[in-house]
């Protein structure tokens, strides 16, 4: 298992280098001159030329790329923002807790609503409960998250005045953004759960569990659900990864000082170091989340666990059958 984790972490290196190269190249070919942006419109040509030289913008593509890679991966420095001169890495670190809290709470909300909804729908397939749950999921999937956010803030912040509409502070500030992300996310989890459950619920081993005299809720939540979990874990993991990468729209709507708003303002201001830094951060976060998801598979399913076991620990024949 340890070998597998180390192998996966090592595999992340080329992925992250690839992402770095891609984002650097895109930024390189994007029109617009950072020196002009930093100095503003009323700077003289001489000042601009001096700054361009200073930032190394006159060097060739390869030189600049190698310099950036060295700066990020050897000096662990993501550079300074062109706009306010603050270190990009530090800025991301400061914003991460907000994004993390919003992401975690919204995923929990989505799972707490989506999972039971999907299970109820599958267990009562083709009945009104199924129809009602899937109707709700359809409505949820059709509503864009930012619109739900706006409507929620209209109702609970402006009309009723129960909750703050924007900004971040105490726990009450998290309710509306997390609810709006969670509500739109629970729909896809509900649909995934339903189709996964429908697949396992008619399996022979579920009948075996009933024939043992097991109580129905345990048959459903233990014997069936544990077998339907893998696609659901993937879905939840992906959702968590996306949210950790910054819920750009929700963070913008609710003015949360997270990674999402940082990226949006970076893009608006052509703040290259900020954009490159946050894209890199997203790539790393996603790599880690997907690794955790894969490890969860192994935790849930012994067949996958057997594949992850190091080859040395197993007899040769089993290794050949195991695949990986």
């Amino acid at each position, binding site marked *: 298992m340890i070998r597998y984790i180390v192998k996966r972490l090592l595999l992340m290196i080329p992925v992250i280098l690839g992402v770095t190269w891609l984002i650097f190249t895109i930024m390189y070919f994007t029109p617009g001159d950072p020196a002009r942006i930093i100095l503003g419109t009323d700077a003289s040509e001489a000042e601009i030329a001096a700054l361009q030289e200073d930032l190394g913008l006159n060097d060739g593509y390869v030189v600049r790329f190698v310099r950036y890679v060295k700066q990020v991966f050897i000096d662990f420095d993501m550079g300074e923002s062109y706009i306010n001169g603050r270190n990009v890495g530090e800025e991301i670190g400061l914003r991460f807790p907000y994004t993390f809290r919003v992401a975690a709470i919204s995923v929990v909300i989505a799972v707490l609503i989506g999972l039971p909804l999907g299970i109820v729908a599958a267990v009562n397939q*083709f009945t009104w409960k199924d129809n009602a749950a899937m109707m709700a999921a359809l409505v949820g999937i059709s509503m864009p998250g930012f619109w739900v956010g706006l409507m929620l803030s209209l109702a609970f912040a402006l009309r009723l005045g129960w909750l703050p509409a924007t900004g971040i502070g105490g726990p009450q500030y998290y309710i509306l953004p997390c609810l709006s992300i969670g509500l739109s996310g629970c729909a896809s989890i509900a649909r995934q759960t339903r189709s996964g459950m429908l697949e396992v619920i*008619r*399996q*022979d*081993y579920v*009948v*075996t*569990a*009933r*024939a*043992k*005299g*097991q*109580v*129905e809720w345990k048959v459903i939540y233990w*014997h069936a659900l*544990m*077998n339907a979990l893998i696609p659901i874990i993937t879905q939840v993991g992906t959702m968590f990864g996306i949210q950790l990468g910054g819920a750009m729209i929700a963070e913008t709507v609710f003015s949360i000082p997270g990674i999402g708003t940082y990226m949006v303002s970076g893009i608006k201001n052509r703040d290259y170091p900020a954009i490159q830094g946050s894209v890199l951060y997203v790539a790393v976060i996603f790599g880690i989340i997907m690794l955790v998801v894969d490890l969860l598979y192994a935790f*849930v*399913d*012994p*067949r996958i666990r*057997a594949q992850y076991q190091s080859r040395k620990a197993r007899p040769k024949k089993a290794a050949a059958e195991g695949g990986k």
Partner: protein
Amino acid sequence: MSKSESKRLLEVKDLTVQYLTGEEVVEAVNGVSFTLDRGETLGLVGETGAGKTTIAKSILRILPDPPAKVAGGEIFLDGEDLLHMPESKMRTIRGKKISMIFQDPMTALNPIFSIGDQIAEVIRLHEKKLSKKAAYEKAVAMLEMVGIPGERYSDFPHQFSGGMKQRVIIAIALACNPELLLADEPTTALDVTIQAQVLDMMRKLKEELGTSMILITHDLGIVAEVCDKVAVVYAGEIVESGNLEAIYDHGSHPYTKGLFGSIPDIEGEEKRLSPINGMPPNPADLPEGCNFHPRCPYATDACRKGKIPFTEVAAGHLVRCVQAQKGEF
């Protein structure tokens, strides 16, 4: 426990099961009646789709509802009405008094739990006083009884062969010393040598534990080896029933005869088997009169209308056939 000392264990009366799909009603089981005494083994024989598994599953009340519906009849275990008892009480019977061995060992075990835990589950469900450790020990003992080393308790189903999985399933079924064992084609998915081992084991365990058994199969050889009584099922109906000798030596229904005609005889010199012509009827559209008449070489006009009653051709030997009524067999 005066009730349970009576000889009769199970009584099925006029059981009727239907599958309600969108437009049509599939008549899977039509008025099946039989009885089973303690320690006795009944063989339910018939083609695939004749309704044998449905009969067994309705005794345990584990038919998928919807679409399946028990439309009529009664099932008594020890005089207790199984079909009308509350679900909570039924759960104390499933796995304890009645247990079932399923047809396909490859899919009947939950792939993500260890086989030992799956055996211990049924033990802990029905013997609540047992500690976790005692249940573990009993599960290990069950594994060893079916010939699997106890150290393999924590192994998962994918680490076992089909024959060993079937042993695990048998261990689950026998873990709580059931009074009635429903064995649904327990050897169909296994190859012949493993078949013999599993049958041998089942017979031995049955003798040791005194369990009654309903053996569902389409293999007449297995029935001859294991069963005391036989009921031949055709299109959801018992067409002939009696003890082993009655059916094997004096089989009277044309369908029973047809079944035996399609088995090769080692000593005979026939070049060809004599199969039963035609196909079993569509259970959503059963023929009028005797269900077998479209395929029956002896069919007459009398076979084409009305329900054919049983005729007792010898003591305990019932045949559902017009010819038998006339005393021609």
